[in-house]
């Protein structure tokens, strides 16, 4: 066997057919994105423009109590539907040209397309609802609240996978955090003790992940899946025995109250999002920012990424690969634990069986969707939060769309985005492979 086998770099069009000549330098064109654009434009034409019903959709931005008031946005459904379709069509043409010229559509192009499409959808669906007025600020703020655990979870995923350990156990880390936060918070009566316990629990789950995948070289995906089952079993078991026997003692945790920053919190739309949060909410922004700066603008981050991309090279220059991995996986557990605490110390009154309900997997999707970048994952998680919240809000408004289809929306959007807009997602090269020094 030879070590110099050149694998033909199969571009999208030419499937590899053996015989590798000298590698050709050519522009690899990714047509998926403009094709998706085109499909969505047709959807927009059929649904938002031709299918528009009702007169107008009203978006309220500020309430009477606000210091600064912004008048309501009134969007006439039919003209807006046509305008958005036209803009989407223009973006599609531009996207096709961009692919012909440079091979890919720039990321901001996809983002602009997505924002326009969502706007078109909102105007259409609100216009067709029984109540044609929606409180936009509440919609966005609610999305942020729903996204908090997802964002914590996805940060845990990013941190761990950047160091080369696939973290499927986010779900378990969240659940363990939620459980211990509830129990410790209830027993001690202190939110901070609850938060600390959640962090410890997340780290413990992570420690298992780290030991089994780094020390015992067990496949990381397997360990992750099994840890999820284990944590689900453990928390459900203890819930059925301990917590339900004396729920006032074990399962009535105290809650973080939100800290309102004067003046800034009165800014319309962004005020409540950024300046009227709980400690965990503020912590989330800090962690996203710290991870972004840390991973991409510090020596530490460079080392972590090196370990995740090419551990051998990292080892050669003197980085302790496995120690870096241990540290990152444990840190990831701490972050996910905090996200778990959000469930029981902020959003719900008490712990219940399997209360994370697959959010860890959504967070995992956000990691891949956000291309293993903290900022990207942040926005991906927000999109999920937004879609979930929209489903709640629209259920109240009374839309013609059946509630189950609204519930499907976040997932359909993800499939669409992952298959169409993001396409080939390339994670850290060494993620999933254990590193053993020769």
């Amino acid at each position: 066997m030879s070590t110099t086998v050149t694998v033909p770099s199969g571009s999208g069009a030419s499937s590899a057919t053996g015989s590798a000549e000298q590698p050709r330098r050519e522009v690899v064109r990714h047509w998926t994105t403009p094709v998706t654009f085109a499909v969505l434009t047709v959807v927009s034409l059929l649904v938002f423009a031709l299918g528009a019903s009702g007169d107008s959709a009203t978006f309220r931005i500020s309430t009477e109590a606000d210091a600064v008031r912004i008048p309501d946005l009134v969007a006439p459904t039919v003209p807006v539907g046509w305008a958005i379709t036209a803009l989407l069509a223009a973006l599609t043409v531009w996207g096709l040209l961009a692919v012909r010229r440079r091979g890919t559509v720039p990321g901001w192009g996809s983002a602009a397309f997505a924002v326009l499409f969502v706007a078109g959808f909102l105007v259409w669906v609100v216009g067709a609802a029984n109540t044609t007025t929606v409180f936009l600020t509440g919609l966005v703020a609610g999305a942020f609240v729903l996204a908090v655990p997802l964002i914590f979870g996805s940060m845990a995923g990013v941190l761990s996978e950047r160091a080369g350990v696939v973290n499927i156990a986010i779900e378990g880390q969240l659940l363990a955090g939620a459980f211990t936060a509830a129990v410790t918070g209830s027993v001690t009566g202190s939110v901070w003790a609850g938060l600390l316990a959640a962090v410890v629990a997340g780290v413990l789950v992570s420690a298992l992940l780290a030991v089994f995948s780094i020390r015992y070289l067990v496949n990381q995906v397997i360990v992750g899946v099994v840890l999820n089952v284990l944590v689900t079993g453990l928390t459900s078991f203890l819930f059925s025995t301990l917590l339900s026997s004396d729920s006032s003692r074990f399962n009535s945790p105290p809650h973080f109250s939100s800290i309102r920053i004067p003046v800034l919190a009165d800014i319309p739309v962004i005020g409540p999002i950024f300046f009227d949060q709980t400690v965990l909410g503020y912590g989330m922004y800090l962690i996203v920012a710290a991870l972004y700066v840390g991973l991409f603008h510090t020596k530490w981050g460079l080392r972590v990424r090196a370990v995740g991309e090419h551990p051998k090279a990292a080892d050669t220059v003197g980085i302790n690969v496995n120690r870096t991995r241990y540290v990152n996986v444990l840190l990831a557990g701490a972050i996910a634990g905090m996200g778990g605490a959000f469930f029981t110390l902020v959003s719900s009154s008490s712990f219940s069986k399997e209360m994370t309900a697959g959010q860890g997997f959504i967070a995992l999707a956000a990691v891949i969707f956000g291309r293993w970048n903290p900022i990207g994952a942040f926005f991906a998680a927000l999109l999920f939060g937004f879609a979930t919240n929209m489903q709640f809000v629209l259920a109240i408004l009374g839309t013609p769309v059946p509630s189950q289809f609204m519930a499907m929306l976040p997932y359909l959007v993800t499939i669409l985005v992952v298959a169409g807009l993001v396409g080939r997602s390339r994670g850290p090269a060494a993620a999933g492979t254990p590193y053993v020094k020769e």
Partner: protein
Amino acid sequence: MSAVTTQAAPTPGASGPASGPPDGGSALRHMMSGNGMVTVLAIVLSLVISAVLIILTNEDVMEAAGYFFARPQDTLVAAWEAVAAAYAALFRGAVFNYRAEDVTGMVYPFMESLTLSTPLIIISLGIAISFRSGLFNIGGQGQMIFGAMFATFFGVHLQLPVGLHLLLVLVMGILGGALWGSIVGVLKAATGAHEVILTIMLNYVAVNLVAYLLQTPVLQREGSTNPVSEFLEPTAVFPPLLGDSFRLNWGFVVAILATVFAWWLIRRSTTGFQLRAVGANPAAARTAGVSVKRMYVVAMVISGGLAGLAGMSQVSGTEKVLNTDVAGSFGFDAITVALLGRSNPVGVFFAGLLFGALRAGGVTMQTETGVPIDIVLIIQSLIVLFIAAPPLVRTIFRLPRPGALQARTTADPVTQPALAGAAAATTTSAGGTAPAAESAVVGDAVGVAAGDAVSPADPESPAGAGAPAGAPRDTPDAGPPPGGRPTASPTQPTTGEEGEQR
């Protein structure tokens, strides 16, 4: 094939103990360090840890522990009684009810275990095939729902003769699952989207879709306000296998046939060979002329089809109606079953039996002793975790380290090449560029895989034939019998390992 894994990510197991002298031939020592021993000990260890949990949450024990230093024996007795009662109930519910009045009552639990394991075995086979192809199919739930939906639709709305109707419903179940699975395969092949995301998302879509359809005339029972379908026509349900006193039905035979099919597919067919080649090393398979993209679709169609069949066996077997909870937690349980069975059909069959038995026994345990059934989840996950890390089990029980004979200290058997491939596929699907480590073993992988497929001394065939007779009831260890190992290994110290573990 795991030799490929071992080489792609060099482990001490591959290089370290190989220098040691070959094992002297002590049969006991061989047995103690073998794979089967690890499996048994992993189960024991899981039961012990779960017993600790049962003790810690038992009220009698805690009460006695309050005066532990005055009368320690009270605590110990209470602890023993709590555990013994729980595990005895587990046994009575899963295997043999020695307290029952008549024979039917005695064997009923075992029949119930078989019944519960039927859909689990079928769906786990599907998941195992996807693992072997390097795809991490988490979408068993959605595919199962689709199979159940299709089966119910044709089982409720059609009037056909006996036999034909059941066959049609069965085919439709497979078709439904295959359809839902193929979406993943096609999207992955066409756009390179990550199958983990796709399958998770499609699960939620399927859950909501079935909830919606169960509120429309398509599936909802006439006059009902609940999301539940009509009962399936009597011609569309599996007849009971051993009389009306048991719930066990012909679905179990289908599960056995599915196991045989999966075994044949993976071990004997060209498609299976190509699937495994893609799973072991997509770049190498591509070089060898296998269409990796086509194989992704094929793998997902087969995997989804089996999941759909599981859904069909659920509605046509035990449930006889469709409700929103038809897939339950089967999709995720199947992953652990496939892992425990090492993605090997016969192993999956016995792992499915074990998990089905734990499930059946768990119900009895909960009703009779009040120990929540969730403990079963703990036992299951611990078993898989320990089996995945043989060195850990050996350390705990101070077993001898296997010598050169089994150069496998770290090459854990559960870690499938397929899963290693899944991780690799994720990263390599980016632009078709293979990491250096992979291209290094390109030639080797194909050679090994080819030898794997045509080798007449296939260690699995004796296991497959001998296990039902020789293996105790619920032993999930369907790995090669101990006798198969020494003959296979010494001749090929490193590459022979692939023959053992596949």
